[in-house]
């Protein structure tokens, strides 16, 4: 399956297993603008897979209400760039529902899925990676998969998790390489980073599409510099797996974090800050962040904006020579 098919599979499993589960958002009924919900309305009925009016705050607010009654709500925001009208609902309502009611009520059965990240031609409003805005919000979980197999397992975990979750799907990967994905349901745990390649000289951390970039950088480093890289996919942005990252940095002494989102206030700054607190004496070089520039996501300048393998490689080289 490719990534959009693995998402469909996860949604199919959820609706089959959980009779309360419903999927809603803009254009999900016919299959969705990225085909993630193809076939589900026919299979499960129009009361379970349905379109909503064009209103993100309504989609999320409505989803919160469904979840409060205990039913499973799977909301789609058509592009992560459009999630901002729903920001108040997510941050002030969903994230605080359990806390403010002293656990009398909660909307834990809410999951929001949304296409995320650069796609080559998305420009300002079809390319954003807004995870940093939500990282600052206690009460929700933010999860980003790097592949079809990861996507299905992580999405199922989000849907079953008893806290409201945001699941960002790298849109550039939707139709990219397919891999073996089981048809039956399976879970990949949240808040656990994955060391996808062990190494000894430098730790590389990324999530989503960027994991593939840093994996390639690791090969380049091995080939050109004889450097052994430990490559980590963070997977869950909040609550994030501090222990795995720190354990790796204690071993290697060097950390490079990379994301498409702008540098200032991006999630790399949180990782960097925590790691320097926990691993200060282990560091051989300043922590390196290779990120998007502090600009809106550009249109024609995208190839210059993104933190590509050359920028990551160059930053790695400087760290090694520090």
């Amino acid at each position, binding site marked *: 399956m490719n990534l959009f098919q693995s998402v469909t599979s996860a949604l199919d499993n959820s609706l089959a297993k959980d009779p309360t589960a419903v999927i809603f958002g803009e254009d999900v009924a016919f299959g969705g603008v990225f085909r993630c919900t193809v076939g589900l309305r026919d299979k499960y009925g129009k009361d379970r897979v349905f379109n909503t009016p064009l209103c993100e705050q309504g989609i999320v607010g409505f989803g919160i*209400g469904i979840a409060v009654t205990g039913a499973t709500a799977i909301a789609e925001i058509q592009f992560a760039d459009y999630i901002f*009208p729903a920001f108040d609902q997510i941050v002030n309502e969903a994230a605080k529902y359990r806390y403010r009611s002293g656990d009398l009520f909660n909307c834990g059965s809410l999951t929001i899925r949304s296409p995320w990240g650069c796609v080559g031609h998305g420009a300002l409003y079809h390319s954003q990676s807004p995870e940093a805005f939500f990282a600052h919000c206690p009460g929700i979980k933010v999860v980003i998969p790097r592949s079809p197999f990861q996507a299905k397992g992580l999405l199922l975990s989000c849907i079953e998790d008893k806290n409201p979750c945001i699941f960002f799907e790298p849109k550039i990967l939707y139709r990219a390489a397919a891999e073996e994905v089981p048809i039956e349901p399976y879970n990949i745990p949240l808040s656990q980073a994955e060391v996808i390649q062990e190494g000894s000289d430098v730790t590389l951390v990324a999530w989503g599409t960027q994991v593939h970039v840093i994996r390639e950088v690791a090969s380049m480093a091995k080939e050109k510099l004889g450097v052994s890289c430990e490559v980590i996919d963070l997977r869950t942005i909040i609550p994030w797996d501090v222990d795995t990252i720190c354990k790796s940095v204690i071993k290697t002494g060097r950390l490079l974090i990379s994301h498409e989102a702008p540098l200032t206030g991006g999630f790399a700054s949180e990782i960097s800050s925590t790691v320097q607190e926990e691993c200060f004496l282990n560091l051989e070089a300043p922590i390196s962040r290779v990120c998007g520039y502090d600009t809106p996501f550009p249109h024609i300048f995208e190839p210059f904006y993104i933190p590509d393998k050359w920028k990551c490689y160059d930053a790695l080289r400087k760290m090694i020579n520090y």
Partner: protein
Amino acid sequence: MAVAIAAARVWRLNRGLSQAALLLLRQPGARGLARSHPPRQQQQFSSLDDKPQFPGASAEFIDKLEFIQPNVISGIPIYRVMDRQGQIINPSEDPHLPKEKVLKLYKSMTLLNTMDRILYESQRQGRISFYMTNYGEEGTHVGSAAALDNTDLVFGQYREAAVGAAYAAKRANANRVVICYFGEGAASEGDAHAGFNFAATLECPIIFFCRNNGYAISTPTSEQYRGDGIAARGPGYGIMSIRVDGNDVFAVYNATKEARRRAVAENQPFLIEAMTYRIGHHSTSDDSSAYRSVDEVNYWDKQDHPISRLRHYLLSQGWWDEEQEKAWRKQSRRKVMEAFEQAERKPKPNPNLLFSDVYQEMPAQLRKQQESLARHLQTYGEHYPLDHFDK
């Protein structure tokens, strides 16, 4: 977006749609055609008639240029059952509630009023930090609540969430209505618009209950909206709507009762705009003499108060008198004071609970922060009001 149109086209072809429909799909911005036909869709698509074929509206053509004039001079009429003296106007509208029920309505409203007085005072004395009174609006709360079932869901705000809950209740065949209360100020928020539109399109058993009390803090209705209040918005969304006299507890009761019955039976939303007046300040942080006249407030307090009107009704039925009034006032004061003093004596929960219920399970990082506060208090505890908190 070309991807989306292409995908739609492929999908539609696979579904074997007619050529004519495909003609429409080839135009850019074909959004909205991919969903299944709404129930009010008119005649079969045909290019032969001169009638409008637009999918977006069911209407006739007109060849005269005319703007629709919004009707704010004489707006939607206000339904009432009792006059200002508590006399039933139209006997066929009298709900004929039994004595016990009407007494319960009266006692609920007056107990609320008593609680408001005591708690407002207690804020002035520094015993609580903040309070909002209900003066003048007791009829809206009690009249509507009396018309609901014990299993119905009440949302004090959160308009879109209320719609979601109603949708889930419908799917669960729960026979519950959801009621969502909000003021005429909150009705300006985007989420009221979202809530109305979702409730209508998704056919949810929900009552939107708007308390139009004339002010949103200091903002009068003339600065809140230009249309005919909130009730006039309902039809714009396809929602059954009514405006009632919010100070007439029987009118509120009747409207809510009927709305409840139909919302559940027909799976559609209802909008009730209860006209009333906020006699008190917005909150203990507000002094409304800064923006309205004492005369205006006194008019409502003396001439059109929901509690007085119901009391007149009770008196005329012979179900209440001065003796019972005196005794009940004393009893309700005592009830409130006892509850207040009992609550005041309790220590506040342990500061450890600051960290609970952020998530269902406490994340490792948060536990570290919890431990950090505990250590901090061990050293610096004297600078914190720990005496008022549970050990």
